[in-house]
């Protein structure tokens, strides 16, 4: 059994009950195929980087679960048929996992909580920010390169 992660984007004006209906349906399908849902988390309403089905905003929901591979196609089919789902992405997180061990690990590590709430892990975040300033000049350099490329064209 593998651990999968599905992120799906739904229409921004969808009501809460409609959204829970979709997540319930996904959960139901996981249960049907003897899978196990580790957690379902809302990532909130976000601005899309590009419009999808003429929508500029979307509500992101993440489902982390363990299941047999065969159930993925069925879940994806149901999401594809749902008009309220703008887009989805399934990713294999871990292969051949021990479901019970992984379930306790998820809770112990607090993986089911959104990363923003992990404020107590402040030091690495600060470090990352300082690194940002270091890495930003090369980014500008590349921008310059692309500009010259265009000029050549």
């Amino acid at each position, binding site marked *: 059994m593998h651990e999968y992660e599905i992120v799906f984007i739904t229409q921004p004006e969808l009501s809460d009950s409609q959204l829970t209906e979709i997540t319930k349906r996904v959960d139901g399908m996981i249960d049907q195929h003897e899978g196990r849902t580790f957690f379902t988390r809302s990532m909130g309403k976000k601005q899309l*980087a590009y419009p999808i089905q003429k929508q500029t905003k979307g509500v*992101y929901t993440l489902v982390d679960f363990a299941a047999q591979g065969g159930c993925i196609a069925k879940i994806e089919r149901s999401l594809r048929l749902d008009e309220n789902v703008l887009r989805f992405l399934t990713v294999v997180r871990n292969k051949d996992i021990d479901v019970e061990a992984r379930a306790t690990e998820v809770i112990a590590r607090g993986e089911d909580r959104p990363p923003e709430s992990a404020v107590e892990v402040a030091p690495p975040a600060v470090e*990352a920010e300082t690194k940002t300033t270091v*890495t*930003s000049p090369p*980014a500008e*350099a*590349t921008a310059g390169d692309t500009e010259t490329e265009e000029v050549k064209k």
Partner: protein
Amino acid sequence: MRPRNKKKMKRKSRVSNRPRVCRYCADKKLTIDYKDVKALGFFTTERGKIVPRRISGACAKHQREIKIAIKRARILALAPFTSAQAPTA
């Protein structure tokens, strides 16, 4: 023809700008996640292109992971495919 000196100078500055170690190798706790747009932002240009290894300083292994993460983020509209897609609102 471009003057030789100019070319040399440009190359030199590029090397000095480059971070010496891969940030993901330096900090083992950092994980590459396609949902973490902020972190991936350091590996994309303003146009949304993936920054090459020689500039980002990432090691081969992590550059591969970064590449996959950026492409996944693009599918989920967390990152643009091109800057032409940049939201106007």
